[in-house]
């Protein structure tokens, strides 16, 4: 059964319940169905506009240091310097936990990635990155949900999970998705008896959104409870540490490792809006990157053999101005970097259409110009992990050009 028809079947089940049948068995039957390909896509959204020019600084670009007199990272080899990746680019030293992934070629970096026609407003830029339709506000669902709707993936309550308090815009839509702050907080209130009662109450709900959400909820709760998912310890000596992003990725790893059929996971991380006092090898941005790098490295290690079937995309809504502002920070800009990690990635490379920071190359004479459309990278990832062939419904009006990730 496709996701689309299943959703409608469940809606129908709610109506049936009103006539006296019990939908509980249906959820259990669906939850018990077998996972499919076993591939997982994990999307990490950095909210606030992360500064690609400090995350992967173009230390080989002569204009870089001039644009950022107080916040440019020191050259590779110097004290606190960036880590050399190739002739142009280096890695922020706080991301050093990712170096082993770079070396074994499961980390690729896309530089100068952005969404054409987007804006410098957080609100709008995030909205467009998540709807997948830049410039078009009326799109009701998210690109990632549309992708799930069209993939013949595994059925089950944990097929699509967001580890964050509310469902992100990119996962809103007809395909069922579960949002939770953490796995540990996701358990049946009132025990099994309470579950049975609420299951029935929600199956009868008049409000459609509450009814369908209720059916999804009780289905997932039964599965999480029986598998004791939240207690699964990390494997292979992975150490996550206490950062919120680390705890979230650990929960994603638990879902992948316990084979509950996770196909898509999303989470996010704030603190990237560095208008004032951005810092260099230490400071505000470095602290965020240390948390992110440590969490991703632990996640890769924890997954062990499942890393080969997993692909992580790290993205943000926009980059920041090429030049630093008057407060040793940067303002809202245009292109930034994306990180793509996982077993199937042809990594160890910086790809994308970086054109440099010379004034003539900047967008509106202030921002790193977009060299690669974010949607190209997302579409290639969706193709690989969800095994889709036709992207026209995922990103309407967008035709991907030459492959970015190869």
């Amino acid at each position, binding site marked *: 059964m496709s996701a689309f028809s299943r959703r409608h079947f469940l809606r129908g089940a709610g109506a049936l*319940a009103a006539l006296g049948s019990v939908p509980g068995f249906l959820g259990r039957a669906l939850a018990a169905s077998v996972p499919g390909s076993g591939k997982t896509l994990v999307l990490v959204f950095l909210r606030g506009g992360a500064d690609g020019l400090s995350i992967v600084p173009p230390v080989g670009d002569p204009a870089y240091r001039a644009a950022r007199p107080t916040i440019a990272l020191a050259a590779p080899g110097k004290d606190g310097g960036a880590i050399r990746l190739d002739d142009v680019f280096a890695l922020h030293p706080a991301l050093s936990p990712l170096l082993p992934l770079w070396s074994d070629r499961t980390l690729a970096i896309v530089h100068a990635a952005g969404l054409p026609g987007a804006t410098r407003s957080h609100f709008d830029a995030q909205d467009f990155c998540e709807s997948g339709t830049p410039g078009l506000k009326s799109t009701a669902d998210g690109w990632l949900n549309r992708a799930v709707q069209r993939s013949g993936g595994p059925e089950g309550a944990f097929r699509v999970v967001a580890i964050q*308090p509310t469902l992100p815009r990119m996962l809103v839509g007809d395909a069922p998705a579960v949002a939770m702050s953490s796995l540990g907080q996701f358990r049946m209130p009132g025990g099994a008896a309470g579950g049975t009662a*609420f299951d029935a109450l929600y199956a*009868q*709900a008049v409000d459609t959104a509450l009814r369908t959400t209720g059916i*999804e909820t009780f289905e997932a*709760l039964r599965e999480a409870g029986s598998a004791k998912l939240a207690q699964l310890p990390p494997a292979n000596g992975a150490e996550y540490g206490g950062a919120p992003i680390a705890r979230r990725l650990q929960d994603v790893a638990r879902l992948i490792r316990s084979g509950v059929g996770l196909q898509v996971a999303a989470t996010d991380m704030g603190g990237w809006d560095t208008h004032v006092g951005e810092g260099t090898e230490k400071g505000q941005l470095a602290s965020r990157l240390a948390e992110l790098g440590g969490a991703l490295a632990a996640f890769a290690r924890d997954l062990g053999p499942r890393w080969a079937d997993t692909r992580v995309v790290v993205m943000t809504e926009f980059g920041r101005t090429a030049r630093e*502002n008057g407060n040793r920070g940067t303002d809202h800009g245009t292109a930034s970097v994306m990180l793509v990690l996982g077993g199937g990635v042809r990594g160890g490379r910086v790809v994308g259409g970086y054109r440099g920071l010379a004034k003539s190359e900047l967008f509106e004479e202030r921002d790193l110009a977009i060299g690669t459309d974010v949607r190209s990278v997302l579409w290639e990832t969706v193709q690989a992990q969800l095994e889709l062939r036709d992207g026209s419904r995922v990103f309407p009006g967008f035709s991907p050009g030459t492959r970015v990730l190869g």
Partner: protein
Amino acid sequence: MRDPLLALVLLAGCATASSGGGTPGAVAPRTGNVDPLHLPAVSWSGEEQAVHVLNRLAYGPSPADLQQVEQMGPATWIAWQLRPADIEDAAVDRRLADFPSLSMSTAELVAAYPRAKKVAEAKGISLAGKSPEQMRAELVGVVEPFHLPRQVGAELVAARLIRAAESRRQLQEQLVDFWFNHFNVSADKGAVRWMVSPYEREAIRAHLFGSFRELLGAVAHHPAMLFYLDNWASTREGFNAPRRGRLGLNENYARELLELHTLGVDGGYTQQDVREVARCFTGWGIRKPNEDGSFEFHPQAHDRGSKRVLGTEIAAGGGMEDGERVLDLLASHPSTARFVARKLAQKFVMDSPPPALVERVAQVFLRTGGDLTATYRALFESPEFWSDAARAAKVKTPLEFTVSAVRALGGTTAGDVPMVQALARMGQPLYRAQPPTGWPEVSQPWVNPGALVARIDFGLRLASGRLTGTEVPLPAVDGAPDAVVDRTARAILHRPLGEQTRSTLLAALGVSEVMPDGEQRRVDGAKLVGLLLGAPEFQNQ
């Protein structure tokens, strides 16, 4: 129970709930000088009208308020709520007296609730090079836990929850929620932790019923907003600040002022307007943010050149008045009227308000020079507000859900940690919304499995007395189980139960079967209330 007064209130609540109506303790209001609203005719019963009004203008029906609206009639009750100064609220005022931080200025708050590190330094304890664990060990016994900066936020949250649950000025409390959210700042951002309480008091609460321009101006001047959106650090290009080096323009506040506070994202402005507005506001700053925290204009930092905003020339040399001119332009702009009208309609009527309603309310806003009371009035008098399509059409926010649960039973809350944590689990940690957009005004983002679990869990814990600091009296359970279920459901959901729902509830309560001696089991009141608060019908308003 610590407070004998509180015990009395609770007992009164008990009596009300058990007799299925009863006499609420409220004093009859003074309503001599109110001008009742002109409401469209509806076919709803008096109770249905009162429930709808209390679901939207208040934090849900409480037994006392329900009776009051029914007695006064919605037209008079709403008019009375539009004049909160006429509403006696001494009981809540007495409870808020427990929170000294609520009346302090930012400077007083910084002094009274200093950072732990600062306290340690003052006592000659060095924390340099120590791990967080070592620091904690050093600070125990040195720092008074109730005089740390976090106490400012804790008291503000508690006050908000107490007021939402128990204040008689219910519309005022809903409007605090709306306008704080519209002009959101996050207490998590640096010095805002001390400024957020004065911000709510001075910028938001003081201007809920006046003109939009006054509200906008109070927000624009407030250090909490100047800090949150970085305007305090924005200067003319190339300005050399003493001790801070070369500074320059920061567009953050200017952009959100246009996009989120006034015109709306499609309101017809350009990137160039953003930049020009930012230039106008250069020099609007803060006197010592981590010490004094009051507004201060810095003429040296101001861009003295001429500017052009939305096609209007702002002549050179205007100084601080440049910003005021921009606020004048924005507050009277038709895009602002529509943007504000639409958001208010989303809050009070439905998630997708009819364009005709938005236009009508926007015209009132424009015609009255942005008179907020007139604008609210137009909204509450509209046939759309009183339409069947609007009834129970919105999903409660976590704040509305939790507070309405307390109110439904005539309960009381101290607004302390368990309540605050429950809200965070539902996705709404108060005063900590990170983005300038604030919390979503529409239902969809609040309806997801994680939040639903948190809501159901909250209802069960509240009903069984496991939510420390928040208490609700349980209804009487004497009588036949189906009568108890019907009566209690009626008191909490204010609508008759469907046959299917009733049998689900009776089955869950285990009272369908008869005991061996022929007696029927008694209904577990806590369980019944928990089921009803978690039911889908209680998530709607």
